[in-house]
């Protein structure tokens, strides 16, 4: 018997490549210089993206930034902008770039300094995500000016008939005054028609804009006999997007987080297999009953990443143990969250420590979240392994579900999109794959910034000794 209980998360903000977390964080090497990049895309397109670059290497003299389409061939680069160095911090640069069309873009960053030039590109989705209303003050101002203009042109039309043709000193006769009033009435009627037409035009422009506002794919989920999770990507309709053009990210077309609500006390990081077209299937493990949120990260062929969301009620389920890259973990109930806790016990006996520092966490600030993995004896583990090409994966989730971000050590950029920025380099997206596993450090860091204040849960996953371990932390973010 199949139980179908998919519910769309209508309350979630429609933001791509993560949920409610539009800013992009990226850490990488531009030649000899190590840079931490934050890009804040505009909420309307065309719009202005704000770029912040911090160099952790000394000697950077100049940083140039330029926007390019991610996959469009045969294009010249526009003249780059020179990012402005901070007066108090010469290794911190800021700039702004115009993104002129909806779709996948990249910001090419070139650092130049004592050790010559170096560059890399950061993929940036340019998506309209906001429908702006007009505030009352602006509406009153524009209405008043509009009325003044309408009344003015009617009066000018009246004067043009009443007095303008008269010789100097001559007074208008009653007939001329009557004709003037008729002309004023006619002009008022024509104005009413113009205002009506203008309103229709505005409505049509608004409607066309609303069609461009990004609408993420939704996950339609159900349970099949044998404890199988069936997923279908539901397209609410947005431009000419397809749901069957996905690029694999480390061999998986979809990276799915399944999180039990409302306590977030159980998390799974799964990789459903593709069935027909936009359908996926995943064998589930043993599951306690409950309502689960689903966050599925996918990347389209043009490099556009998005997180498809859904929700499902699952009864107590007897499944099968997870295999391969799939992982699961239990977590303390959110209602008992300790926002000062920096140690998370791991299922294999070791522990994960968050080098959090003592300063309060602030919204819209980029941070490097650093975690260390220790064995039961308190020593750094010596057997760290890559987990899907990465030292680790982290998920940042706001308590109310309005924010979800799946972040890698290189940042919030999806790997297939990063690969598209360097089509000639087959290893652009996973340089870590070339690292000798024996030399992997027992620490991992993630560049990320919380988009708004609130209570967040952080799931950090690493692999060592053949086990995928999950650390769980909670963060209180201030404004």
């Amino acid at each position, binding site marked *: 018997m199949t139980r179908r209980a998919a519910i769309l998360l209508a309350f979630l903000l429609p933001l791509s490549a993560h949920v409610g977390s539009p800013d992009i964080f990226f850490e990488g090497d531009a030649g000899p210089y190590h840079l931490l990049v934050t890009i804040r895309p*505009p909420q*309307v*397109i*065309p*719009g*202005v993206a704000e770029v912040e670059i911090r160099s952790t290497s000394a000697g950077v003299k100049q940083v140039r930034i*330029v*926007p*390019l*389409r991610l996959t*469009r061939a*045969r*294009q*010249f*680069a*526009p*003249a780059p*902008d020179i990012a402005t160095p901070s007066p108090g911090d010469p290794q911190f640069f800021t700039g702004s770039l*115009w993104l*002129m069309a909806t779709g996948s873009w990249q910001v090419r960053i070139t650092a130049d300094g004592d050790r010559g030039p170096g560059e890399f590109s950061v993929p940036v989705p340019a998506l*309209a995500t906001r*429908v*702006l209303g*007009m505030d009352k003050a*602006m509406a009153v*101002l*524009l209405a008043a*000016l*509009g009325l*003044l*203009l309408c009344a*003015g*042109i009617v*009066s*000018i039309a*009246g*004067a*043009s008939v*009443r*007095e*303008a*043709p*008269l*010789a*100097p*000193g001559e007074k208008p006769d009653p007939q001329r005054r009557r004709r003037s009033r008729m002309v004023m009435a006619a002009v008022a009627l024509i104005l009413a028609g113009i205002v009506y037409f*203008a309103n229709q*035009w*505005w409505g049509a*422009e*608004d409607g066309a*804009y609303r069609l461009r506002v990004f609408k993420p794919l939704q996950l339609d989920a159900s349970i099949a006999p044998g404890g199988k999770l069936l997923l279908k990507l539901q397209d609410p309709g947005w431009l000419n997007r397809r749901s069957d053009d996905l690029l694999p990210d480390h061999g998986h077309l979809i990276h799915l987080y399944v999180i039990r609500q409302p306590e977030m006390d159980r998390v799974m990081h799964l990789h459903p297999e593709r069935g027909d077209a936009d359908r996926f299937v995943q064998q589930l493990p043993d599951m306690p009953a409950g309502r689960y949120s689903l966050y599925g990260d996918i990347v389209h062929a043009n490099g556009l990443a998005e997180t498809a969301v859904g929700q499902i009620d699952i009864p107590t389920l007897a499944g099968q143990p997870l295999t391969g890259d799939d992982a699961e973990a239990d977590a303390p109930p959110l209602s008992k969250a300790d926002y000062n806790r920096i140690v998370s016990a791991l299922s294999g006996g070791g522990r994960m420590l968050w080098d959090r520092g003592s300063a309060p966490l602030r919204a819209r600030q980029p941070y490097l979240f650093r975690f260390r993995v220790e064995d039961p004896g308190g020593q750094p583990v010596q057997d760290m392994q890559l987990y899907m090409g990465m030292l680790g994966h982290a998920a940042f989730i706001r308590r109310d579900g309005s924010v979800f971000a799946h972040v890698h050590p290189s940042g919030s950029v999806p790997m297939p999109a990063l690969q598209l920025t360097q089509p000639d380099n087959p290893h652009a997206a996973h340089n870590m794959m070339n690292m000798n596993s024996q030399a992997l450090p027992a620490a991992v860091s993630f560049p990320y910034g919380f988009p708004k204040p609130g209570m967040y849960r952080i799931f950090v996953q690493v692999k060592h000794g053949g086990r995928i371990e999950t650390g769980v932390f909670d963060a209180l973010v201030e404004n």
Partner: protein
Amino acid sequence: MESRVPWYVWGAVAAVTSAMIGTHWDISWHRSIGRDTFWTPAHIAIHLCGVLAGISCGYLILSTTLKRDSPLRDCAVKMWGFRGPLGAFLSAWGGVAMLTSAPFDNWWHNAYGLDVEILSPPHMVLASGIFAVHAGALLLILGQMNRSEGSQRRRLRYLFLYVGGMILVCLTILQMEITSRSSMHTAHFYHLVALVAPPVLAGVARAAKFKWAATAVAAVYTVFVLLMSWILPLFPAVPKLGPVYFNTTQFTPPEFPILFIVPAFLLDLIWYRTRAWSLWLQAIVSGIVFIAALAIVQWPFADFLMTPAARNWIFGTKFFGYYVSPNSMYARYQFFPTEQPLWPEAGIAFGTAIVTMSLGLAWGNWMEKIRR
């Protein structure tokens, strides 16, 4: 006899000139550099129009209203307790419209994105303001001209024809996006230009009472657009937006002016001989002549513009905006397909020209009587 041109007329002429230079410069900026701020020189030139019109016409209205011995008091119109020349009120209205467009445009950018198109509602408010400043300048000159004689009247007539030409420049800018050379072998092109050129040529020519008025208006338009298309590319510019399909290195000029001067010359000849005809009869003949004459010269001229011989600084077809797709028909020097059959749209073009010509003639008749 007073022969000097009043200072406020010069103010109005400077305002319309500033607006048209600024608008062409701004469009070229968007085709060459792409990115701008409110404070580009082109924007300043556009808004200087509103400032010049607002200050000169505002002062004119206030001084006429408050000074009982003002020489303009007897030849002013009254509105909302104020007195002043009709053209001053219209120009001031244009200034307020331009002012209104600024917060509206800013909100529009925030709501729907930074626009890259000429035709948007806030831009239309701005355009109506600029047009009103032009029309106000025209009426300001006209009122003074119709009250004067001798050398002052002659000088004012030159300025009147100049402003008429600038009105033609202003209206053709609105159609710039939809009347490219690729469209010149469609009847729709002639339909579109029939909306703007005939009323300006007819109205200004009728009110100017000058044998070669339409030719002069078309000549002002032609010379102004030619100057813009020859001067702008002399200045370097590089795109600051992507994707960039043409590696622009200089300001991109407007297209070569439409050959309005040929039908305008013929219209002057016709109007000189048909003064006694009824307005509708004149409009029918003038409308047909306008479309036919324009098509006869513009159609083969467009063929020439598509050839390598026109890809030089004189005709400017070697210049493209950075964003023009190299696969577009425009970039490949190809024409949009001619309508099949041609005659329905051609008939609409002729009908439009006749209607707009009649409106222009009626407007000219009304302007002939303006004294204030």
